[in-house]
């Protein structure tokens, strides 16, 4: 499954120091709830993204504990302060132990 998981993040390329920016994130993932049954009546095991985090230069922006009630292809939108140039690190934690990670650099200008 990990081969098809592709995180997508929208972060502006530049910001003024101390500016507030909007971050939008999306990752394609089935978010299997563990409640559904297949055509043979067997329960399909749960496999979801159970945690999402965003950090900037090592400081936390947001840390979300995710439950199966979050939709397929989980989407998160939030706002961050950019005190200096640096890098946003986004991580999604899968039930199967995989961690999908992506980064976005931002310049001050």
């Amino acid at each position, binding site marked *: 499954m990990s081969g098809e998981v592709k995180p997508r993040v929208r972060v502006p390329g530049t910001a003024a120091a101390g500016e*507030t*920016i909007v971050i939008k994130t999306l990752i394609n993932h089935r978010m299997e*709830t563990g*409640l*559904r049954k297949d055509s043979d009546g067997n329960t399909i095991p749960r496999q979801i993204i159970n945690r999402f985090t965003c*950090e*900037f230069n090592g*400081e*936390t*922006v*947001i*840390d*979300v*504990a*995710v*439950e*199966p*009630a*979050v*939709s*397929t292809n*989980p*989407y*998160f*939108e*939030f*706002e*961050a*302060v950019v*005190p200096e140039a640096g890098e946003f690190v986004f991580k999604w934690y899968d039930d199967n132990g995989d961690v999908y990670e992506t980064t976005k650099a931002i310049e001050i200008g």
Partner: protein
Amino acid sequence: MELTRRGALALGAGAALSLVLPAASARAAIEDSIANFTGGADIGEGGITLTTPEIAENGNTVPISVAAPGAVAIMVLASGNPNPDVGIFRFGPLAANQAASTRIRLNGTQDVIAIAEMADGSFVQVANNVKVTIGGCGG
């Protein structure tokens, strides 16, 4: 089988009980989640906004937004789902505001609840009713 008055009453009582029990266990699950989050503290009102659509045509993906200025964490619960937990948003020092948006699954028409933990350790909550046309939990 001959249907006696006593038998009919017993059947009726059993049916009523089976209707009440799931509702009671769901409420217990919500109370457990809230107690885990608040540690049993009193929950006030005000200072938190929850934005939900009045009517969601598709329960599989319902856009919601929560905002609670000054919060350290916001928990979202869907009271009518098989598992009421939706998620807990914790805000770090670089969060510009204590607000976030996401998309959630709702099993049917129900109240969506958001509870915020404020920096001073107090809790506030808000609940919105969302009418769902097609449920989103695969059941």
